[in-house]
């Protein structure tokens, strides 16, 4: 894990979509010329995407922009045969709705599909990391929204994924819980260093969390913004970046008009 972090610091690649000519380490996710059609509708068109190990990417896009399809493909939920796609074997998804199995206790949900010895201990450790060790024997339907989402996060992290896919995981939470979850996700990301793809509607969330922000529109990546400023010191660039991103998302409308409808969608 530390090796990867060193690599990231050493090569703060300014490259946007293009892959650097010589990469010391291959990206964990690599899509080339990826197109997905359902019937006559092209959902994703000729998309190229690289995600470096340990990189935190936020993916913005309006409804119907292809975000979900891209995420499903990376999660291995859609058949990807015949496409030029590289994704790590160890990957995990946190969905907007926690999707816990209500008939399994919290720790068994976290342990779902784990193989080998010490499964209970691994689940307990993961739950402790999201500060839920006291709820491990609870039934999922008795959890609050935030607790359920933290359980889902523990269920993803216990697999020690190289790629963590977050599908609007904070959208259904109240504001205070959401900010706590932001901090928790960042802390866990710093500790475990998976590559993260966070799908979100929330431009501010993307600015606060990501190394790189991608804007998906009509199945294409229409913008990519790398943020070099450290997290926590981004207040200064936030306004300009927000305007730029909203401009992309508004698809031609004046940037400042985009704010309200975007917020309402989440």
């Amino acid at each position, binding site marked *: 894990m530390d090796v990867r972090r060193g690599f990231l610091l050493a090569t703060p690649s300014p490259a946007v979509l293009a892959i650097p000519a010589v990469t010391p380490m291959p990206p964990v996710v690599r899509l080339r010329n990826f197109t997905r059609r359902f019937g006559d509708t092209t959902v994703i068109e000729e998309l190229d995407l690289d995600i470096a190990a340990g990189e935190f990417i936020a993916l913005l896009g309006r409804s119907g922009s292809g975000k979900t399809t891209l995420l499903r493909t990376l999660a291995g939920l859609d058949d990807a045969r015949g496409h030029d796609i590289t994704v790590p074997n160890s990957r995990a998804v946190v969905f907007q709705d926690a*999707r816990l*199995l209500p008939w399994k206790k919290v720790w068994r949900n976290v342990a779902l599909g784990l193989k080998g010895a010490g499964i209970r201990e691994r689940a307990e450790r993961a739950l402790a990391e999201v500060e839920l060790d006291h709820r491990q024997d609870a039934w999922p339907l008795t959890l609050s929204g935030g607790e359920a989402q933290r359980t889902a996060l523990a269920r993803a992290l216990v697999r020690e994924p190289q790629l963590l896919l977050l599908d609007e995981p904070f959208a259904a939470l109240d504001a205070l819980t959401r900010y706590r979850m932001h901090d928790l996700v960042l802390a866990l990301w710093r500790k475990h260093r998976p590559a993260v793809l966070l799908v979100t509607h929330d431009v501010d969330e993307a600015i606060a969390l990501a190394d790189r922000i991608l804007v998906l529109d009509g199945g294409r990546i229409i913008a990519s913004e790398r943020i070099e400023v450290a997290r926590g010191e981004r207040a200064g660039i936030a306004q300009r970046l927000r305007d730029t991103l909203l401009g992309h998302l508004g698809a031609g409308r004046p940037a400042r008009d985009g704010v309200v409808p975007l917020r309402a969608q989440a």
Partner: protein
Amino acid sequence: MTAIALQAPRLSTRVTASRWFSPVLLLLLWELGARTGVIPERTLAAPSSVLTTLLGMIVSGELPSNLLVSFGRVVAGLGFGVGAGIILGLVSGLSKSGEVAVDPLMQIKRSIPVVALSPLFIVWFGIGETTKIALIAFATVFPVYLNLYSGIRGVDPRLIDAARSFGLSQRELIQHVILPAALPSLLTGLRFSLSISVIMLVIAEQINASAGLGYLINNARDFMRTDIIVVCLIVYALLGLGADWLVRIVENRALIWRPSIVGHN
């Protein structure tokens, strides 16, 4: 006609005394009518004489032995019926080709009232135990089958997606997600089957029974013993209640993960 969960409204634990008022009043009027001769013995025996007969039949062993025979028929019929319903529901629910093979047959079967099959069953199996058990079995297949099948097909696809994203194999998916998710529907089907089994028992035992509750009733009819008939009606009712109680116990054990909040979705 699909899986309708007709659950009786749960009586609150604080059953108020007023709920007992009208049944008790009816019993008193009935007793009064019998004592004063308004209701003749041949029409309907008095509650007190029904109670005496009941106790007498229990002490003499007449009721327990015949009840055991009837109980055996229900258990055997349910065993075959529910067993077949579960197997067919699994086949139909878990595989597309199974659905194509099984479901049309089950829909055809559903359209035939089981009672109307009794002449055919008598021709095939005679008037012995086989026909009675076959009638109960045949009638109880469908509720279990349909509810299990639709329960499996109705599993939240988002849960299946989530489980698949964590690399569960098809077998693990069935074991950890699909079957537990279909369990509430299966239990609903089981409850239907149990109440149907009691109804079918009554009908089946009209066919030349030489033992069992139906035999008692038929004999009592011949001798116009309305007290014995009422005793048997009470026993049938208790059987139905017992069946319902049994499923509730199973439900409370198996669905312990459900929060006990009324109206929760």
